[in-house]
């Protein structure tokens, strides 16, 4: 249906956008790609008083290697990241996960930062930034702060972004060449939000797990890391049995909700299967 009325500003610079947000009482919403926001407005589930359109702030449209980090700006579209050789090399996990994200036209407009701020509990990219230990860079009119991904996702559609803040950048440590990764997802149809998806990175040394990250989406109100399972793996043999046990630990650790696409029990079960498969793949990629 048609959206409710709202005011509209289209600042030319980031500072102008931040100024508009300041003292706004949270009544405005930033719009970049709009692929998540506009449907909610068309359903009249979300009724911002004002939209602040940042699509013309070209200074935010970049992704590049800065030292040992991949820096992705707020206006970077999914499409650009999916096609990028830079991303493929620096963050192969993200490159692989993009196969599962939405569809072409949605990726043409939608932005990574917008997706992360929207924080859909079944979206793929939150799991990816969790598994890669990304850092979220938030700017407000007077300040800048960095929030690790692990502290960024707080609940369903809820992040650490304050009302007067914009997520201006995501910084991802460039993946070491020796790092393996794995991504597995089950969705009803290709391109749908995940029922459950698992993302992992893995480093092995002398047949033992040196470092591992495991993230899941679709298992609760927001994407999560699984520190208990990760700790148990580190230092142990990088073998099938260990991966299976880690997967089982993850399944016990999550408290998914039941909804129309799957019961809590099914999601837990999927978590176990997909974490195992992701770890197994990551292990193979380490060699």
């Amino acid at each position, binding site marked *: 249906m048609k959206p409710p009325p709202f005011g509209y500003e289209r600042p030319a610079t980031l500072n102008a956008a931040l100024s508009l947000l300041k003292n706004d009482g949270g009544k405005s919403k930033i719009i970049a790609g709009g692929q998540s926001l506009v449907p909610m407005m068309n359903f009249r589930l979300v009724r911002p008083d004002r939209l602040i359109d940042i699509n013309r702030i070209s200074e935010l449209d970049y992704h590049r290697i800065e030292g040992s980090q991949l820096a992705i700006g707020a206006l970077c579209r999914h499409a650009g990241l999916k096609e990028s050789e830079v991303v493929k090399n620096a963050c192969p996990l993200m490159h692989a996960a993009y196969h599962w994200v939405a*569809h*072409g036209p949605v990726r043409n407009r939608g932005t990574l930062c917008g997706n992360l701020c929207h924080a859909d509990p079944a979206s793929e990219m939150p799991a990816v930034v969790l598994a890669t230990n990304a850092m979220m860079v938030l700017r407000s009119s007077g300040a800048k702060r960095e929030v690790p991904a692990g502290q960024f996702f707080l609940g369903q559609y809820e992040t650490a972004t304050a009302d007067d803040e914009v997520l201006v950048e995501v910084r991802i440590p460039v993946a070491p060449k020796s790092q393996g990764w794995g991504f597995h997802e089950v969705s009803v149809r290709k391109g749908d939000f995940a029922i459950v998806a698992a993302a992992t990175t893995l480093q092995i040394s002398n047949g033992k797990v040196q470092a591992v990250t495991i993230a899941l989406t679709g298992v609760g109100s927001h994407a999560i890391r699984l520190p208990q399972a990760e700790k148990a793996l580190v230092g142990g043999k990088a073998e099938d049995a260990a991966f299976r046990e880690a997967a089982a630990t993850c399944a016990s650790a999550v408290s998914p909700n039941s909804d129309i696409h799957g019961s809590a029990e099914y999601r837990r079960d999927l978590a176990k299967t997909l974490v195992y498969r992701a770890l197994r793949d990551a292990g193979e990629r380490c060699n």
Partner: protein
Amino acid sequence: MKQIEVTLKVNKKERRAAVAPRLLLSDFLRHNLHLHGTHVGCEHGVCGACTVIVDGVAVRSCLMFAVQADGCEVTTVEALGTINKLHPLQQAFWEEHGLQCGFCTPGMLMVAMELLSKNPNPSEDDIRDAISGNLCRCTGYQNIVKAIVSAAKKMRTVTEAAA
């Protein structure tokens, strides 16, 4: 709420209007500009019937506000061809029976246009990937894929001949 002046190119013609911020691009094209070829199926960004090209990329026009298209170049199905001079894509859809009710067709043509402009020699998997965000309830899709394969081949032949 106050109206906002927008100026944009639609099918290579400059158009100017004062619009409410909430006017969807799909409604602007259809009801302000009377370009009815772009269809509206859901208004929640899933069916793809409203797909148009904005600054060279396929976009769901029900998820964009007309004010956001200010300064942009928009292409709709009306720019592709006429009944006396069909675009090779339209000709191919006709020959391969790639449409039945026709409602999803303009959206399919637009994503096919975008695909072929970036990749003149797509594989069938590339084509499936490109149209996977466009719903069709009539055809089962296989003839649409066939049509795009056929059109791509014809368009490559024309390009090669011209070169």
